[in-house]
């Protein structure tokens, strides 16, 4: 019921043109991958998503760098991403980025967002931004990417706030 209401609400708020309109109410427990609306992608494979989030792919296009926003530690979204995508613990995650920076493999580091609202705000306002947040908190102004062809709430979507095995 809740998932349904959210879908209706999103559909009303964003209209059919926005990707978020495709997030169904069933995706409320899912983890949505959101980008700045100007980002030239609408979907990613899981592998591509992993490359982007791990900083291995740093540009959307030659003039558009990837700006990565992550949720702050202890958040459920961060835990889900560390488990499913990074497959690292928190210390491993930090060590990974420190090493990446000191090896000059990445000029930027993920920006910690204390809330989904803040994530929503920065992703919506930062060109090339990509972040993740609870699909239920997604508002208009960002673009929800399909992962392996599925939007949050759709069957086969792999990113969930609740770890599924």
């Amino acid at each position, binding site marked *: 019921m809740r998932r349904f209401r959210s879908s209706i609400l999103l559909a009303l708020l964003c209209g059919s043109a926005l990707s978020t309109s495709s997030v169904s109410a069933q995706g409320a427990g899912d983890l949505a991958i959101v980008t700045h609306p100007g980002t030239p992608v609408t979907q990613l494979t899981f592998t591509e998503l992993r490359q982007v989030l791990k900083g291995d792919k740093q540009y959307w296009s030659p003039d558009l760098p990837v700006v990565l926003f992550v949720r*702050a530690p202890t958040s459920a979204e961060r835990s889900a991403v560390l488990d499913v995508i990074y497959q690292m613990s928190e210390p491993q995650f930090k060590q990974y980025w420190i090493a990446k*920076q*000191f090896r000059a493999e990445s000029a*930027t*580091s*993920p*920006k*910690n*967002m204390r809330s989904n609202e803040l994530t929503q705000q*920065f992703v919506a306002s930062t060109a090339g931004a990509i972040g993740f947040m609870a699909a239920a908190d997604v508002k208009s102004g960002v673009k929800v990417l399909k992962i392996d062809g599925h939007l949050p709430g759709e069957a086969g979507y792999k990113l969930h706030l609740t770890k599924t095995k």
Partner: protein
Amino acid sequence: MTIRRRLTLGFLIILSLFAANEGIQLWSARLRARTMEALGGALKRQVLMASVRQQIGNLQNLMSQMSQLEDPAPLEHGAFNKDIGHAATEIHELVGLSDEREHSAFSELEQTYVKLSAAWRGFFDNLGVDDAKYVAAQLEAEPIGKRVLDQILPKMQSQQDESVKQARQSFDDVTRRTDQVSIGIFIVSMLFSVAVAFFLGRYLTNSLSELQTGASLIGAMNLEHRINIQSSDEIGTVAAAFNNMATNLSRAQEELTHANSQLTARNVEIEKEKQVSQSLLLNILPQQVAEELATGGRFAPRYYEDVTVLFTDFVGFTLSTEKLAADELVTVLHDYFTAFDRVVARYGLEKMKTIGDAYFCAGGLPVRSPTHPVDATLAAFALIQEVRHRVVPGGVQWQVRIGLNTGPVVAGVVGIRKFAFDVWGDTVNIGSRMESGGAPNRINVSEPVYRRIKDFFTFESRGKILTKEKKEIETYFVTGIQPALIAGVDPAIAVPPLFAQRYRTYFGKELPAFPAFLINQEADTPHIV
């Protein structure tokens, strides 16, 4: 041009080349110093850029790390501001060190850093205070820092690398050009030095050789030779001096030759005059006496222990003086005495003097000889013969008395004008006495003469006579040659061999002459009047 000027000019040119080389070295050193200065500036800028790059990178990393903190607290800004300010100072210093070409890039860096530092300050000011602001500041700082680190600084670094490369290239070019020019000048200097040394040395050597040859030829009295060096330098001056010397020597030689010719002619004249004088002197003096007088200026009186004196006196002269004119008488006397002189000379006697019609000669002086008694006797016979063969104008036949004596005398030359060689002593007086006590066409000799010639001649004793000193002396007329010495001798033979043989045996000398008429004594006996 003189050699000194040539050498001076050559050395000046060489010195000029070395000075040019030194100038090029100085210019090169200045260029290299300037290049080194540029290189040092570029290196300093490189160091500063590395420092800036490091600091910006550190601050960027610091910002990234700080952003990963779970629950960051507000920061003490002093340390960060200090780092940010320090980087700004270094960037400002970089701008100050930049040249015109680099200035725009450095200014861009400075302006970009202003934005970057503002973003950093926004990050650090809001970290732990306002998440949205510090993330916004980080989002602003990251691309700026990335542009600085990935674009601006590498571009500037590339410019600095290019500057360093150009500075090094310039340094190498200047060094290479300087080395090439220096080596070129050095080679030119060396070639010029060698050329100067070679040509000047060859010129000097040839000239000196020419001078040496000329000096040798002139020294060998080849005075017509001239040194063929036509130059206005010192060598030419020496050559001209040599040639002048040769000319003067040639002229002097000609004058000397002329003078020698004149001297030779004069010597010939002197020699002739000397011979005339000598002849005249020998007419009045014996040769030995004349030579001694000529050599020492005087003839010292000397004692002759064995001399034969011969005196003659004409019988009939006084009568002739009454009949003949004086000049005719002198002519007659000259004819007689000329004949006497020849006879005396033929028998090696020395004419002493004539006194009126008397004739005085001697044998055994001035050269001592043991033959003088025989020689004087033979001469006496010859004198009588000469008188017998002559007739005085007017038909008068003169006769002659001859006296001989042998003994010691003192001989000498007295007086300084019209001096004459003369003898003194009893021997002379007795000889005169022998003449005066003799008889016409007879040879009256004293006892000493008789003893010396008795083996050659025949005699007729006359008994004793008294001298002025009242001394008694045995006297003899010489009547002829010992018959044994001329027996069987062909009258055609001039000298009887036995006589000559005895003469040679007694005296060890050859007979000087012999009166041939004595061989035929019977037909032509001198003492027969």
